[in-house]
């Protein structure tokens, strides 16, 4: 297939995914509001345990005692990861439910191209939602402010984080072709991210979570993003962390591609594509 034809398929898939997404506007509203609501129990927990908006023990671990800002930044950035996990990782499973999976497999397009279309649609919706959340949060008294000098390096880190993560999500999509029902596994994976990366707490508090977290790109991205937003560490460590993320991206993208291709071929050979 020519480059132009591939680009056309990606654009068509993006348009289709966005059209389905906006057919249920209530779901868009839900994803804009509830991820922020989920952090409220942690804010109240902080208030109960510490009694103020700042914790000395938290500052010792993270460099900032503002646990509210810590939690809110974790919630916003993790939005990208979880929407990718559900939107891309689970997308081929949804096609099976809609009864359109066989058409995708039988079309003269590689399913990976279709997945790229889905990925771009998912990324654009999530970016809009997070931008909205960030605007609202910066207007509230949580001690988070966004300036252009902060936003640009943060965007770079988010892009580097998501490139690798979408590689992982594509591999996961291949996994759904093989084992079909993965709803429970997505939930478990979601909670593994919550446990082993500093979305909701500083992972250094426990040696095991601290050790495992080093292997997850989200950990590196969150540490750098919080450093920029909360500690004004503009240049400190940014290039080093960017380098680590680029290396992880390369591994995850290549690993994701080969895993997807291998699993898709196996599913075709076994003749189980149409099975539920």
């Amino acid at each position, binding site marked *: 297939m020519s480059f132009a034809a591939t680009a056309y398929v990606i654009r068509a898939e993006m348009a289709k995914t966005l059209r389905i997404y906006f057919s249920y506007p209530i779901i868009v509203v839900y994803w804009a509001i509830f991820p922020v609501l*989920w952090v409220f129990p942690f804010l109240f927990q902080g208030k109960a345990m510490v009694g103020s908006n700042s914790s000395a023990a938290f500052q010792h671990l993270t460099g900032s005692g503002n646990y509210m800002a810590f939690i809110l930044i974790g919630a916003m950035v993790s939005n990208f990861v979880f929407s990718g996990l559900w939107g891309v990782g689970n997308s081929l499973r949804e096609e099976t439910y809609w009864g359109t999976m066989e058409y995708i497999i039988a079309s003269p397009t590689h399913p990976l191209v279709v997945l790229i279309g889905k990925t771009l649609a998912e990324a654009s919706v999530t970016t809009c939602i997070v931008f909205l959340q960030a605007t609202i949060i910066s207007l509230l008294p949580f001690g988070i402010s966004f300036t252009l000098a902060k936003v640009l390096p943060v965007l770079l880190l988010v892009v580097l984080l998501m490139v690798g993560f979408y590689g992982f999500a594509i591999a996961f999509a291949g996994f759904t072709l093989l084992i079909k029902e993965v709803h429970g596994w997505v939930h478990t994976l979601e909670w593994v991210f919550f446990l082993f990366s500093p979305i909701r707490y500083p*992972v250094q508090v426990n040696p095991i979570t601290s050790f495992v977290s080093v292997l997850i790109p989200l950990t590196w991205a969150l540490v750098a993003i919080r450093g920029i937003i909360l500690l004004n560490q503009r240049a400190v460590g940014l290039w080093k962390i960017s380098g680590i993320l680029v290396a992880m991206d390369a591994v995850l993208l290549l690993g994701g591609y080969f895993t997807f291709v291998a699993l898709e071929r196996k599913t075709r050979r076994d003749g189980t594509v149409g099975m539920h």
Partner: protein
Amino acid sequence: MGEDSRGQGVEDSGPVTGILESSNPGPLRLLRHYANAVWVENIKEWKLELTYPIDFLRGLIDPVVYLLPYVFYGIALVGGRSSANLQKLVGTTDIVSFITIGYVFIGFMNMALWAMGFSLRKEQMYGTLEAVFAAPVPRWVFTMGMSMHSILHQFLMIAVQLLFILAVFSLKVNPLGLLPAFGMIGLMLIALYGIGMIMASTTLIFKQGWLISEALGSLLMVITPIAYPLAVLPVFMQKAALAVPTTYGIMTARHFLMGEQMGFSVGTAFLRVAVLCVIWVVCGLVIFAAIDRSTRRSGTLSHY
């Protein structure tokens, strides 16, 4: 044991046949018939669940993974497992025991919101909803069977959760408080059954009712004092929390097990939950019956 048309063994449905034959069965016989249906539904759910053993094991580990971020976050906030501010608010310092006991109740909340709420939707997915509706038992009996399975499953998950926490952190609780805490949990489950009936009825209208369960679950997670006392919530949330049975379940269990000061007496807590039981169960049954009737009349029962 009899034989079906293919000569295969089938179990006699003794009480069912009896009830169908009798035009006016006595209340005890009817109760036995319903209890039998509840038990059969519970067994059916266990069989379905154990058909996927890996998924079943994963489900047992999930609650531990859910709990740990709350515990670690608490430890990171205070630099240990003891909080002076918590002591000031509720008279206890141990954050690990406080959070763990509170978190156990999320499982019961999920029972009402997801297990019962989605019971009819699941039957629809299996293609057996019409058969369930045509069965000679009321629909509330069917959802009660679902909730029985869910309660037993929750206790199993809680056991795994508590064993893990006991092994890693050690819980500091008063064992003499276990019995009254179970008494409160039993009462709370009745009220949750009423909420579950309302959730089940919403799936008859909205079909894909996950958004309602998810939204309500998220709101309840905020106002229920799982990892914090009621006092830290804004006043309007504190008032809303008093209509939720799990609020009393958590606070009373923590009161019995670790001496949490509740701001009201144990008698008041039991009385309020008893009132909530009546309100939620009556509301649940009435709303379910109304929606059930309306769905049948409009002919949308089998719609997806």
